[in-house]
């Protein structure tokens, strides 16, 4: 039942937020997101002390076909549901009410997105998966288009929308193809789809895999489908950018693991060499682009692509031949070590990028600019901001004893095991990552003032938003195994 509540509560509060007065909207959104957080925390309890019936939600589907699971909290999606519900209260506190018009619509749409994101990671039915996949998208389009910054916000948000929708519709063809092949009764639950997909020939699997891959590459995004992303991240309100980069981008990785690796295993093993080359190219290419950017948020956007490309490379290096997944649960999978690392890194990247984007927003609010050339010397006279920035940044460049190190090290290790040369080339990204992130710190915090002043430090609220994120980066780096029991 917890899985159902995690969808219903944001949906219900989201719709009711449309009808309340503006001043109440933030409080209602906060209440809703804290209830969701409480639910996922209790879900964690039942996950570690199994009581499946409390986590799953079953429903009678068609007249004669009996009950089966529609939503399930656990397995692969658990870490991402946890991430979603941890981040939402923080960004709702983070989002200032007085800077947006019609805040009740803003928060309502945000909660609808939360319902969609929770649903995607819990759905056990392909149609439901697709519905939630899109439920996150339409609010995002409106949020970017209405409350974005800049003159061309409508065009930017439409580009984002059309790109993603193009991918999703190709995915829809793939999904329907699988359903049509799932026996005469056309069951749509993951078990039937899993069995149907494994009966397809390798040629069929490759073609359907490509349809899915395009959708998920756009969502992540990965070169060459990343062109919508930097502009959208810079245009969207920061809280929405956080949702997009910390959570929505993870939908792509989740989808690849679910559909390509688990369902279309044969096709995936055929495509693996090409995907890993593409991923490593994307990893280095976007890292190099990030070094040359002058906009704070653009650097973060490209770094996000770069990190997700590494995750993709690790997914492609999963050793599927050693133990073909013959049970539709990832827990029983041979390559569990790499898979654990992938899930850990998905979670860790979400936390780190959320923290960095919040810092970017505070710097922008304080100094009225995101242009690195106009910043400089912002560390002077501040106690907390430079520390928070530094911790997040070190997590991002994978310094040992941060959560980023655990993730990146294990992922690179997996790529190394796949092929030494590719692993060696991918490892360059660590250096490039250090270059662009330290450049970011140096240009903004150190040196002398270059035009724009930034006086004052973070407020107490802002401190308390960033502290949980910093704690995770450090604890995740020191006790990764303890953290991982909650994730997978």
């Amino acid at each position, binding site marked *: 039942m917890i899985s159902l509540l995690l969808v219903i509560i944001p949906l219900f509060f989201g719709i009711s937020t449309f009808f309340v007065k503006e001043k109440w909207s933030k409080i209602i959104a906060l209440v809703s997101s804290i209830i969701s957080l409480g639910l996922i925390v209790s879900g964690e309890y039942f996950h570690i002390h199994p009581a499946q019936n409390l986590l799953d939600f079953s429903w009678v*589907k*068609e*007249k004669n076909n009996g009950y089966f699971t529609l939503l399930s909290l656990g397995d692969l999606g658990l870490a991402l549901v946890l991430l979603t519900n941890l981040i939402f209260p923080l960004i709702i506190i983070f989002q200032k009410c007085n800077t947006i018009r019609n805040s009740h619509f803003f928060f309502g749409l945000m909660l609808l997105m939360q319902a969609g994101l929770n649903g995607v990671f819990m759905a056990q039915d392909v*149609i439901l998966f*697709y*519905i939630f*996949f*899109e*439920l996150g998208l*339409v609010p995002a*389009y*409106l949020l970017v*288009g*209405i409350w974005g910054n800049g003159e061309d*916000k*409508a065009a930017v*948000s*439409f580009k984002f*929308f*059309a790109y993603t*929708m*193009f991918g999703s*519709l*190709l995915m*829809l*063809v793939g999904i*329907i*193809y699988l*359903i*049509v092949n799932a026996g*005469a*009764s*056309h069951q749509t639950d993951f078990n039937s789809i899993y069995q149907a997909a494994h009966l397809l020939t390798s040629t069929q699997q490759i073609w359907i895999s490509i349809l899915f891959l395009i959708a998920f590459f756009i969502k992540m995004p990965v070169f060459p489908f990343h062109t919508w992303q930097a502009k959208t991240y810079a245009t969207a309100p920061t809280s929405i950018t956080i949702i997009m980069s910390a959570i929505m981008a993870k939908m792509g990785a989740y989808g690849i693991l679910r559909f390509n690796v688990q369902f279309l295993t044969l096709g995936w093993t055929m495509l693996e060499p090409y995907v890993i080359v593409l991923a490593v190219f994307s990893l280095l290419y976007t890292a190099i682009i990030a070094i040359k950017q002058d906009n704070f948020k653009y650097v973060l956007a490209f770094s996000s692509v770069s990190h997700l490309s590494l995750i993709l490379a690790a997914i492609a290096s999963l050793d599927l031949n050693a133990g073909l997944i013959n049970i539709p649960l990832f827990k029983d999978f041979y390559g569990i070590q790499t898979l654990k690392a992938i899930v850990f890194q998905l979670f860790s990247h979400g936390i780190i990028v959320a923290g960095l984007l919040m810092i970017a927003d505070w710097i922008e609010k304080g100094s009225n600019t995101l242009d690195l050339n106009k910043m400089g010397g912002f560390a002077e006279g501040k106690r907390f901001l430079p520390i928070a920035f530094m911790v997040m940044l070190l997590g991002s460049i994978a310094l040992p004893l941060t959560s980023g190190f655990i993730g990146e090290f294990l992922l690179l290790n997996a790529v190394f095991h796949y092929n030494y040369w590719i692993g060696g080339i991918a490892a360059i990204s660590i250096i490039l990552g250090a270059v662009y992130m330290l450049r970011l710190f140096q240009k903004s915090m150190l040196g002398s003032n270059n035009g724009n002043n930034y006086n004052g430090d973070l407020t107490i609220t802002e401190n308390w938003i960033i502290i949980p994120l910093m704690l995770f980066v450090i604890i995740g780096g020191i006790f990764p195994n303890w953290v991982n029991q909650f994730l997978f």
Partner: protein
Amino acid sequence: MPISNNLWSQLTDNPLMVLAIFGIILMFVGLIPKMKEWLLTIGLVGLLAGWSITLLNWENSLTATPIFNMLTFDRGAIVLTAIMIATLILIFLVTDHKSIIEMNHLGEYYALMIFALIGGIIMVSFKNLLMLFIGVEILSIASYILAGFNKKNLLSNEASLKYFLMGSFASGILLMGITLVYGMSGSFDLEQIAAYTIMYNIHPPALYFVGILLLLVAFSFKVSAAPFHFWAPDVYQGAPTVSTAFMSTVVKTAAFGAFFRLFYSAFNFNSTIWNTTVIVIVALTLIIPNLTATRQTSFKRILAYSGIANAGFLMMVLLQTNLVNENGTHIAQANMALYLTGYVIANIIAFAALFLVKDATGSDELESFKGLSKRNPYLSAFLTLAMCSMAGIPATAGFMGKYFMISGLLQGGHLILSIIAVLMSVVSLYYYFKVIKAMYMEEADGANIILNPSYVFLFIIGIVILFAVGLMPHYIRDLFLM
């Protein structure tokens, strides 16, 4: 059988009689100036009576017997009849607006719509090609007048004339097709024609084949499928908005009902020989209007092109005539009815919103939708949901309609066609979301728009149906199964 019993059964076996009586009453009441406010009520009562009769016959429809071998109210006919009458009820609600109540000849306006509906009901329930032709003519002639009802407006006149010329042309082709089919098979009866089709399954005589093709072309004209769609945008734009709403919903439903009924029951056994033609028409109907619509600036014209594009999706049903579900029931008709439900409801919401905006600003350009979210947040929210449904966003009826259509295509093995359909859906997002963009992301001042209770009722019912179909498609589709 005693006459009295016969009369009662004529009234209650099908809605035709009741609707005709109310149509005539409306015409005469329309002559009395004092009764003008009552016209809408009388019309609604008549339609509700017809609708109840239709629904009461729902269960009987599985074992329906033909009436004089001319009409059969089987499940397929009853479903489409119910959809058409319900649609017309919603359109009547749109007319509850002072600019229409003050119109001249209001009684005739309502009466014509009901007469056209009668033609539509005959078209979806025919068992004999003569009845098909009679139905088409009843529907068309009423529609020509409806298109030109705004007789002092030049565009409306042009629309009416264009519609009349093109429609008569298509009727001619239809007659020619019927003649050839009759000449070869020796009968107007669907069952006899089907028997003939089975007999010449592999190598049908050339004239018979030409007859089928002529019928295909004639119906493509009627449902405005490309390359026979060119009349539709001008007619839709020129006609009064309510007439356009009528044409793009009730008329389209009737035309598709007849189209499907004819090809499904008479020509299904040699579907391989006309399937290729249908595939080409579907592909063209998906590509041409979607690409053209992106260049339009008038919302009414966008809706016209969207109607053509939806005809492409609906025509896919002709490629699914052999599909069965696990119980061995044919599913094509249910797929079509589900798609039509979503399409019709979203269309009426869109036209109602357009009508209100046009009444307030005097223009149907996208410009006039700018800043509507400030002027009436509810209206713009309803229109946004309708547009989402048209664009096929999940959890709405539009998505489920498209889902079942593409699913049927893939079951038939038409992978390329379904990818074309999906790509064109992406293109369609562009023009459907243009209006959302105008409402929410652009600013402009304008008069406030007030929704009266009829409109609120219409919008809420419409949205509820859109989500009900979108969230419980299996229950709805099971209702429609034959």
